[in-house]
């Protein structure tokens, strides 16, 4: 199957075009550490590969460098039949600079190219028309006006693309530019001849920015949005979580009726439903978080947030661009560490990467949610808008962020100040505000859930099974005399100062593989013990068992700070190129977490 490659600037409507061309079946090839994320999907009898958006073919940051490398590879490959370059019709000048560079590259490699003049609906709304026939002649390439949103021209484009992929040689560019500066010149001339006036395009965006970037109001709006984001993780997700929990509990009951009493039945209800099930409950929460972050990104607000944060973050030695990796670090540290590639300054990039693991990722959600349910009463204020559990959540996230900022300051102070001379500057484009389209957003939410389950699922399954075996035998279900209890009692002295007994010790120990295992492990442990009780209410079981407030809060702090994730350590190693940094952080954050947990347990 031959490939069609899709390129374009960021925020040019490329992802939506990709989604409209490929439909629901997509694959994300994620090469951890070394390369960029390449999405692909089937289009007709071809494979459409979506390249990450870059502003230019000359890189400024690490992510662009990698994307451009990949693009060059694809241009050399015989598998590539044709190149599709997506242009933003409302901003011809800036998209043509990139478009012409791609055109010249395609000609150089003897590849055909076809331009998609996307977002033509917006141009029409401005009462403007673009003469595509003349523009095509000026570009020396085929160009099709379309809107991936309203679907105007999409059908014609699809037919043309199939035709072009069949006869790529007929779509070789007829013109090329002499050098770099002429690319900019030509773009400017063509944009003046065909494009919409900049003031018309930017009018609405600038008016909204008047509010959202206002010195005072903008700050208040920013803080409100962030607060609502964290509240939403709890309030919006809880009905969904209750639903998943209900389904799991129902199926556990159904299954256990079918199975004869004995070891197999115990295994299925305790290890499978108790262990693996108690982690599946948290998938909706991860989806809600991804949804809100995606909403902010696709609407164009994230760039404004980076701008607002730039000055405050620079006091801690970070860049405004650190904001986006920090925010996505709340979903998962791994893509966040990769997202730090957009930071131009190598030093700020390193510091951002080193502090991302302190952001409370979604794997910590299950742990927080469980401990909050155990320790904090479900009290509502202001007619249900704010609840005490939500506030506790916010505080835990805040402690993580605060620690990250302190560590950043420390690292900035420690690293040589002279290096500043070679710092890459902060330059940011503010995209148009747009209503996010559900298609790319929906895909993103599903992918986040799938990746989370796929990555954590096998580990959790194995750990649950192993723990169940160790905890069930040799005396079939008597936990106190099991192998696990022996092991647990042996390591108990380590966790005793934290006010935790051996069961928590075992759960913490196994969660060094991946944090979310903690809930599964405790679920299995309490499941074996309370085999006759309702297996779904782990929080209630722990409450009945008695966990002191000090030890509980210490445990929460431990999970805020400790770097308990093998995958993150591996990503850190790959991205920083240093084993020492990766494992050094693992040890340092672990020691810090233990000390704080001990303090909480002793003082409270």
């Amino acid at each position, binding site marked *: 199957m031959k490939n069609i490659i899709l390129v374009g600037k960021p925020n040019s409507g490329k992802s939506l075009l990709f989604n409209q061309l490929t439909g629901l079946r997509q694959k994300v090839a994620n090469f951890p550490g070394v390369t960029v994320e390449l999405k692909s999907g089937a289009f007709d009898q071809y494979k459409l590969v979506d390249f990450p958006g870059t502003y230019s073919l000359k890189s400024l940051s690490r992510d662009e460098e990698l994307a451009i490398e990949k693009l060059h590879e694809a241009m050399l490959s015989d598998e590539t039949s044709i190149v599709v370059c997506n242009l933003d019709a409302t901003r011809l000048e800036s998209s043509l600079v990139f478009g012409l560079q791609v055109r010249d590259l395609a000609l150089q490699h003897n590849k055909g190219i076809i331009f998609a003049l996307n977002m033509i609906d917006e141009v029409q709304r401005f009462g403007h028309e673009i003469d595509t026939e003349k523009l095509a002649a000026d570009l020396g390439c085929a160009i099709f006006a379309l809107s991936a949103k309203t679907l105007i021209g999409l059908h014609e484009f699809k037919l043309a693309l199939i035709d072009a992929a069949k006869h790529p040689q007929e779509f070789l560019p007829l013109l090329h530019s002499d050098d*770099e500066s002429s690319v900019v010149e030509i773009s400017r001339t063509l944009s003046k001849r065909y494009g919409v006036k900049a003031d018309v395009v930017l009018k609405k965006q600038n008016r909204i920015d008047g509010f959202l970037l206002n010195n005072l109001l903008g700050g208040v709006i920013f803080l409100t949005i962030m607060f609502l984001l964290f509240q939403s993780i709890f309030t919006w997700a809880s009905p969904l979580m209750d639903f998943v929990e209900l389904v799991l509990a129902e199926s556990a009951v159904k299954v256990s009726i079918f199975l004869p009493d004995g070891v197999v039945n115990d295994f299925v209800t305790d290890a499978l439903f108790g262990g693996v099930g108690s982690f599946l409950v948290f998938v909706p929460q991860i989806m809600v978080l991804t949804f809100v972050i995606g909403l902010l990104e696709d609407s164009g607000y994230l760039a404004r947030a980076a701008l607002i944060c730039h000055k405050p973050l620079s006091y801690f030695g970070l860049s405004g661009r650190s904001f986006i990796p920090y925010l996505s670090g709340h979903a998962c540290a791994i893509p966040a560490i990769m997202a730090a590639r957009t930071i131009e300054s190598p030093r700020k990039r390193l510091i951002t990467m080193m502090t991302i693991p302190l952001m409370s990722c979604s794997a910590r959600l299950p742990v927080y949610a469980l401990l909050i349910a155990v320790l904090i009463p479900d009290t509502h204020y202001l007619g249900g808008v704010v609840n005490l559990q939500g506030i506790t959540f916010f505080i835990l996230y805040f402690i993580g962020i605060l620690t990250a900022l302190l560590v950043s300051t420390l690292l900035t102070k420690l690293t040589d100040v002279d290096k500043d001379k070679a710092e890459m500057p902060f330059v940011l484009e503010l995209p148009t505000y747009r209503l996010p389209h559900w298609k790319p957003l929906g895909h993103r939410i599903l992918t986040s859930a799938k990746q989370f389950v796929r990555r954590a699922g096998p580990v959790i399954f194995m750990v649950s099974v192993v723990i169940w075996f160790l905890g069930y035998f040799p005396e079939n279900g008597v936990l106190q005399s099991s192998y696990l209890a022996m092991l647990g009692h042996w390591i108990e002295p380590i966790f005793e100062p934290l006010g935790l007994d051996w069961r928590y010790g075992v759960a913490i120990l196994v969660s060094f593989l991946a944090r979310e295992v903690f809930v599964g492990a405790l679920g299995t442990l309490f499941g074996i013990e309370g085999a006759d009780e309702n297996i779904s209410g782990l929080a209630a079981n722990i409450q009945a068992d008695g966990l002191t407030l000090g030890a509980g809060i210490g445990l929460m702090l431990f999970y805020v700070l400790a770097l308990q994730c093998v995958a993150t350590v591996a990503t850190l190693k790959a991205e920083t190129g240093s084993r020492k940094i990766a494992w050094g952080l693992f040890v340092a954050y672990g020691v810090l977490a233990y000390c704080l947990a001990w303090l909480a347990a002793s003082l409270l």
Partner: protein
Amino acid sequence: MSQLTLWDIKKKQVAKVDGLDPTLMPSVKRRLSEMGFSSGQDIQCLRRSPFKGPLVLQLGDCVYSLEQDIANRINISAS
């Protein structure tokens, strides 16, 4: 009269780009010229942030945000 830089621009003011400081890194210089920072281009300041935060400006069909370190290495003249 000393050379005006983009950092001296006032809110709502329109100016012309005069050129880029030669001390800028080549890769940064190239990116800036691709973004449209070349002599004779009109540039308008849309917003200045408090505490010497990044400024927001309109150039061509884009809105960019630049911090002090870079803005004071882009020369302008009042128009």
